[in-house]
């Protein structure tokens, strides 16, 4: 079992086994344990060598992601990140770890908002870009961050240091993903049955399955799901 705590208010536990059995063993249902955000993935990595550290989620300085998918552009992205001269960009036992680091790079190093993250990992194609409100800026972003473009089927769920949560899909929306809940409690899940297990009493008609252009965001106040479409104008860091 591996237990990490790289951040003042974050604990990360990685172990192989039946998730319920492990949770029971660790007593995760104890009342004194409190968390604003729980990220859980019950799956061993399938790509590249099997390694405990390759289990999701991944965390870097308050930014965390976990992914359902395979990132086929992993090697060029890893090469790009490791050559940025940023000591924290390391590890990479999993092809999914780069999602967390790209998030950090986009928001911290480039000063983008969460609406810009999707433009980094899955930029718009030429015809959509040409009619975008921020066409000029986005063309520059697409070119300069070309090495960070992901590929393959991916649904990324992540958190930000302000405790926002988000979900984005790959360019072709090849993976399932759903966001739903009620004010005060929201769930992000690969499958609807996961959401049903955690928040059965939500209004299911308001569940959202983000599509290929969407970033679904739940802010720190946990009041609603906002959808940011990639074709909409951006909050620019300029």
């Amino acid at each position, binding site marked *: 079992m591996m237990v990490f705590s790289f951040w003042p208010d974050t604990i990360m536990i990685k172990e192989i086994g039946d998730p319920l059995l492990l949770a029971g063993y660790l007593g995760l249902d104890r009342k004194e344990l409190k968390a604003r955000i729980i990220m859980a993935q019950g799956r061993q990595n399938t790509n590249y060598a099997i390694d405990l550290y390759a289990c999701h989620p991944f965390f870097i300085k308050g930014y965390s992601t976990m992914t359902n998918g395979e990132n086929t*552009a992993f090697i*060029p992205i890893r090469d*790009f990140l490791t050559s940025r001269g940023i000591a924290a960009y390391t590890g990479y036992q999993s092809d999914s770890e780069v999602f967390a680091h790209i998030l950090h790079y986009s928001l911290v190093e480039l000063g983008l908002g969460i609406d810009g993250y999707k433009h980094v990992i899955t930029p718009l194609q*030429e015809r959509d870009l040409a009619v975008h409100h921020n066409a000029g800026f986005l063309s520059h972003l697409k070119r300069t961050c070309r090495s960070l*473009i992901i590929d393959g089927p991916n649904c990324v769920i992540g958190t930000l240091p302000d405790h926002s949560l988000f979900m984005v899909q790959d360019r*072709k929306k090849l993976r399932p993903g759903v966001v739903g809940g009620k004010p005060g409690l929201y769930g992000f899940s690969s499958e609807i049955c996961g959401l049903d297990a955690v928040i059965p009493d939500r209004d299911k008609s308001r569940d959202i399955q983000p599509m290929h252009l969407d970033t679904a965001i739940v802010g720190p106040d946990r009041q609603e799901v906002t959808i940011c479409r990639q074709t909409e104008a951006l909050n620019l860091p300029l």
Partner: protein
Amino acid sequence: MSSNRSLEPSALSLNDLPWQVKFSNDRCTLCGQCTAVCPVKAIELGVFRKRTLKPSIRRQADQGVAQDVFYGIRQKTDVAHACIGCAMCTLVCPNDAIHPEKNPGLDRMKFHINQQGVPRRRGGRRNAAGSILDRIKFTRISMLTDPALDAGRHEFEMRTLLGRVLSPRENMKRLKEKGWIPPVREIYPLIIGGMSFGALSPTMWEGLQMGVAYLNEEMGMPVRMCTGEGGCPPRLLRSRFLKYVILQIASGYFGWDEIIHAIPHMKEDPCAIEIKYGQGAKPGDGGLLMWHKVNKLIAAIRGVPAGVSLPSPPTHQTQYSIEESVAKMILSMSMAWGFRVPVYPKISASSTSLAVLNNLTRNDYASGLAIDGEDGGTGAAYTVSMDHMGHPIASCIRDNYLNLIKIGKQNEIPIFAGGGIGKNGNLAANAAALIMLGASGVQIGKYVMQAAAGCVGTEEDRCNVCNVGICPKGITSQDPRLYRRLDPEDVAERVVDLFVSFDTELKKIVAPLGRSTSLPIGMSDALGIDDVAAAQRLSIKYVV
């Protein structure tokens, strides 16, 4: 010759020639088309005398000797007229009566192609069939971990960038400060490499230009073509089609007087400027257009007298150091177009390529680096340069790309690979392999001539007479009787066929690897090869 006469050292028999013309007297109609079409006059009408003995056991009168005469084809055996294996005779023969065959034994003629002390010069290629690129396999196929993409149905973005891309942070800073951001072109990753107007016939050049224009304007494929060193026809310089053209400047500066004077009249900027410092087929040697091909038109475009050989010096005469003069040349060319046009050098692959690249990384005006490997083609060069000088492209590209990773500039200076891509017909596989080794795109020359115009050259020293203007297909000739054989419209149509089929094949390679959103530059984890040493050298997987 007679058996009692002395022999000249260079007296050759048919058995010594690299190509032997096989001829069937039974089928020949004596139409003479083969002798008329032969570019080197290797065959001529032969009048053969045949004596036949007619023994008989009967009357004396029935016995005798008959003297018959028959007509056929005689192959010449002198070096100047040795068959080049182009098989134009076969192409024109109405009765399939004639064809050249490669001599399976040692071609002794090789020892004699230096009459009057002039070593062999030719056009073409290295004539080595082996290719490491053909041996690279794509082994990382996504199936269950990742639903395979559909090459025919899904959306693909097979584009590359030509130009200096700044680091994301630096680019962001300059956007904020409204600083100068280097020009970048988004282009198709398969580029028609530099083949000059002069090396190619007018019909071939026109056909290529038309094909490229069609691909851009009708097919939505941003294909670019480099002029090579020979200037550019004045009407093209002043047309909107210039944006599809990469203008090349090399050490002879041929045609640049015309280009510079046309700048104020240009409706569009050219795609880019390529400064040629070296060529893979003959590294360390300059360009060469032999006098046979310098007619009035070529001379006018290049700004030289007609009928003289045009050798470009091995190096630019103004060049004395890479830090100073190469940087200055890149800067001057950038300045000529108001810093709106990418400018990049092309060098031959060499163990010194890394030094060039390292230098360019420190020069913001350098937009990329084109590296041409030993398997590159040429219109004219000494055989010794073509066969023995140069560096394979695969390891050179890999070394350069890995070096860029080391300094974190892999997205900033695109490397373009050239030389022998598709030499055995596997264009898309070779191109994809080089892209995954780190190239941002590839340049092709010979392949275009073969596929779009029917060049008969192969890796078996076939034809290779591009240098003397007698190209039997009219591709590299300046003789109207020859280049009229080539219809520019047909060439354009084949150029389009080539690119569209390449695009499908490229997708058929990248889709199973799970790639579609961006060109898989440097995706080396997809590659494997059945050779330990090669795998180690290229930092890819060894697979058996």
